[in-house]
Each structure stands twice: as structure tokens, then as C-alpha cells.
């Protein structure tokens, strides 16, 4: 089934084309973050301007015509309302014009599923780390859903890293600035908070910002990464051992960080478990993963009537069926 997927939950407008589980195109345009962070309305305006361009580019990369499309998927949530609206509107427009069905996709499910499938894992612990979310997920029940077995008690790790970068005067290019600076840093002590399989980041963020006047930015970048990633690894390790799973994968924007992947790999392999991450284009927000999940949903009959294709800013992952 030839399906187009549209993603617009945050700063990226993406369009991907998928057929038979293969991603034929994965195009995107990003809103450029300024020092003031993201103002949802502004981001949404950028998405509106980029939508037709990105969708058109995906169609020509995949070498398909509009009339070839058999289904459309879009991110229903979670995310920022005004941004999500742009994707939902695009999806409804395409579906109405072509008379095809729509799948309303959960963003977190899409991240987890694209990674799980590319890694050929059946039942992993998924470490889902993005701007607003940080969760340990696992498939359970029938129909299958991702259950949250551990999560941040306050803010998402991506937002924590971006807020920190902005706070010490770096240009927060979605975490990668911190990663680069961290390479030449050494350790200063920061708070480490893990409670069973949950963790929290605000104490760490506050302390790191307090130290900005006395410690070098390299040292702080290094230490905030080492501390927060160690916390995630410890929680994931506990989840893995308590549930008896032998596969771990990482997905979401922060999964692009090389150091995080290296630590999780060491943790998993230290217990004889397999570790995997998807290529970075699928860790960043993208339309390809939405198309991938949408195709499966439509094939299994999970479509949403067009009048119900709205957005859910707080769409909890454990309420979405995994096709």
C-alpha cells in the first residue's frame, strides 16, 4: 500500500512515503530555533509555508504521483497544538482530494516502531528520548500497546539539554552543541536522581546553570551529558533485568547523540543483550516513520473518519494501539 506520512508535532515539518514497509522518501524542513525558543504559533506559520514544498519533494523523490497514493497518515499527537494542526490539515486535504483513508498516528509509537522494525526486534525495552518526552517503553497486552515502565518525573531530556545550552549562552542546535562541547570537558559533580525506573532532570539542570559562572562550558556540557545519560542507562538496565528482556533500542531526537548510544550499548551488551538504534534521519522527527506506521494501521483497518482527524496535544503513548 502506497502511503504518505506527515509529521508536524514540533519544529519539523516532514513528509515520508512508504510502501510495503520500505521508506521511499523522507523529506523535511525545520524551523530554526532562536534564542527565545519555540513559539508554537510562529513554528506553525513556518510549517504552513513549507508544507506544499516538502510534500512535493517527497513525491518526486519517491517518483510517485498523487493519484498513486492509497492512504495518508499524520501525527495526531503528542505535540504542540498549532503545529499539529498543520499536519492534520494537510492530511485531511490530501485524503479529501483523493478519496483515500487516514491513519491518525501517535508520534511516540512511530519513533518506537520504526526503530524496533529496522532493528528486527520483537519485544525490546525502548528508550524513547526526545525534547518533551523521556520514557522506557515495552509492548504489552492484546491489542498491543506500548506501556510506560519508567519515565521522567519532570521534564524531557531534550528540553533539559536545550534549556541548559541556552542558559550558558550556547546556540542550542537541538542538543548537538552540547555534544560537541562535551568532547573536551572533564567531570564536575552534578545531582543524579533515579527512583527505581523513573528519573528526574530539573535538579541537574538547576545545578548546572548555577555553576555556569565558575565552571567552563566544556566541563558542564560533559558532566550534564554523562550524568543524565547514566541515569537513563541505569533505569533502562533495571527495566531490562526486571522484565527479563534481552533487547534494548533507543529512539527519538536525543538518540542521535553518539555518547548516549555508546553507553546504552555497553550496558546492554554487558548483560548479553542486543542493542540497536535507527539511522539518525529516523531519530529526528520525520514523516517516514509516520508513513511506516500509517501503512500498517491502514492495512489492519485502523483508520479514522475524516471528521475525527483532529489533534491531541497530550496523546499518551499507552492509549494508542500498535498495529
Amino acid at each position, binding site marked *: 500500500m502506497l502511503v504518505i506520512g506527515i509529521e508536524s508535532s514540533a519544529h519539523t515539518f516532514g513528509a515520508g512515503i512508504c510502501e510495503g514497509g520500505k521508506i521511499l522518501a523522507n523529506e523535511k524542513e525545520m524551523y530554526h530555533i532562536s534564542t527565545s525558543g519555540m513559539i508554537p504559533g510562529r513554528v506553525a506559520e513556518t510549517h504552513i509555508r513549507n508544507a506544499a514544498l516538502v510534500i512535493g519533494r517527497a513525491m518526486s523523490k519517491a517518483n510517485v504521483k498523487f493519484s498513486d497514493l492509497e492512504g495518508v497518515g499524520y501525527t495526531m499527537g503528542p505535540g504542540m497544538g498549532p503545529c499539529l494542526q498543520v499536519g492534520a490539515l494537510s492530511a485531511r486535504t490530501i485524503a479529501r482530494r483523493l478519496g483515500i483513508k487516514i491513519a491518525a498516528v501517535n508520534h511516540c509509537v512511530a519513533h518506537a516502531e520504526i526503530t524496533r522494525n529496522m532493528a528486527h526486534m520483537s519485544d525490546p525495552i525502548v528508550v524513547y528520548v526526545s525534547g518533551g518526552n523521556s520514557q522506557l517503553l515495552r509492548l504489552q497486552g492484546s491489542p498491543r500497546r506500548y506501556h510506560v515502565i519508567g519515565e521522567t518525573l519532570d521534564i524531557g531530556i531534550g528540553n533539559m539539554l536545550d534549556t541548559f545550552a541556552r542558559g550558558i549562552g550556547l546556540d542550542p542546535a537541538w542538543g548537538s552543541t552540547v555534544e560537541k562541547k562535551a568532547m573536551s570537558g572533564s567531570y564536575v559533580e552534578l545531582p543524579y536522581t533515579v527512583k527505581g525506573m523513573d528519573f528526574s532532570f530539573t535538579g541537574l539542570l538547576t545545578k548546572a546553570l548555577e555553576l555556569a559562572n565558575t565552571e567552563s562550558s566544556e566541563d558542564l556540557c560533559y558532566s550534564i551529558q554523562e550524568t543524565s545519560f547514566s541515569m537513563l542507562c541505569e533505569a533502562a538496565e533495571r527495566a531490562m*533485568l526486571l522484565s527479563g528482556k534481552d533487547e534494548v533500542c533507543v529512539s527519538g531526537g536525543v538518540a542521535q547523540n553518539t555518547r548516549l548510544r555508546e553507553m546504552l550499548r*555497553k550496558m546492554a551488551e554487558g548483560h548479553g543483550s542486543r542493542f540497536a538504534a535507527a539511522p539518525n534521519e529516523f531519530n529526528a522527527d520525520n514523516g517516514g516513520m509516520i508513513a511506516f506506521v500509517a501503512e500498517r494501521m491502514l492495512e489492519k483497518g485502523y483508520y479514522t473518519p475524516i471528521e475525527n482527524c483532529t489533534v491531541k496535544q497530550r496523546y499518551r503513548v499507552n492509549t494508542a494501539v500498535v498495529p
Partner: protein
Amino acid sequence: MKNKGSLLSEGAEAKVFIVKAFGMEILVKSRLPKDYRIKEIDDSIRKRRTKIESRVMYRLNRAGVRAPRLFAAGVFSIYYEKLDGKLMKDSSLGSKMLKKCGMLLAEIHNAGISHGDFTPANIIISHGTPYVIDFGLSEVRNSSEEMGIDLLLMKRSVSSSMFKKFMEGYAETARNPKPVIDKLEEIEKRGRYQIRTLG
């Protein structure tokens, strides 16, 4: 230590060994290094948890709350009494025993401690009496939030009728149960601790 002894249990962060000392069998719980995190962090976490575990065990011993007796504490290891009995999670419990488990948690809270991982995997029933173990996540500071989470973890681990019996014991013995029980309801409403079924 020369003689590592025989391995009794291996958890996510510690191994428990049985060793011979003072002419009897005692336990050593060692927090072993994790090579995925840098040494500075690894050492400091393991030290901190070992320290809190020995402090809490010592406090409970002094307060007369049933827990293994602490013999000695090293940097990454504690040496303590081996109890003979079964974990609560592997035992079938009558209402009297459940009530006693509730009383045990109340005594822990009365001693100014929140446990942090109060589940049937961390209670040993020995000669008809429950004992509490495993204090790596404990705090010597009992806010009603932390104490509420202790109740919640137990609630999530047993049936509702079992929890009712447990709570009878808790409410009877706790010095100030009302705010903790209110907190339990509040945390549940927040919904963050919803589904945590493992296994």
C-alpha cells in the same frame, strides 16, 4: 575480601553473597562497578547508596524495627545478618501477616525513614514475623510524598483485599497516617504511576 562466598542473589545494582564470619553465616551486599558510566559517577553513586543503606539499617536496628542487623559497612559493601525465611512475594499470606506487614511499614515511617522500594520482594517473613530489607533507595527524611509512594508500591503489588488488611495494620501503628493516606490518593490521581507491570 579473599573469600567471596557463594552468590545468593544478583540484582540490577548489587550482588548478595553468603560468607562465613564470626563463626556464622552472614551476608555481604556489594554494589559492583558499572562500566557504562564514568568512574567518577559510578563510584559516587555506589558509595552514596551503600552509605544510605547502612545508615538506614543501623537506624532501624536502633529503633527496634525488624530489619537485618548491620555488622559493618565498607565503601561499596555492607555486612549484615542473614535472615532465615522466605520473601513475602514467594509466600502465601493470611490477613494477620498482611496486617503485620502494614505495621512494619508504619514503624519504618515512625523511625523517620521512607523506604523507596517497599514491595513484596523486599520483605522477608522469618519465623512468622516480617522483616524489611534493601535500603538503597531509602531516605532519612519522610515527606508524605515519599511515604505515600511506599504505600502505593505495595498497593500495586498485591490484591485490593490484601492491601486493605495491610492498611489496617498501617493505620493502627503509624503515628500520623492521615496525610500519608491522603497523599496516596493524590499521587494516584496524578496518574503517573499507572501501569508498572513487569515480568
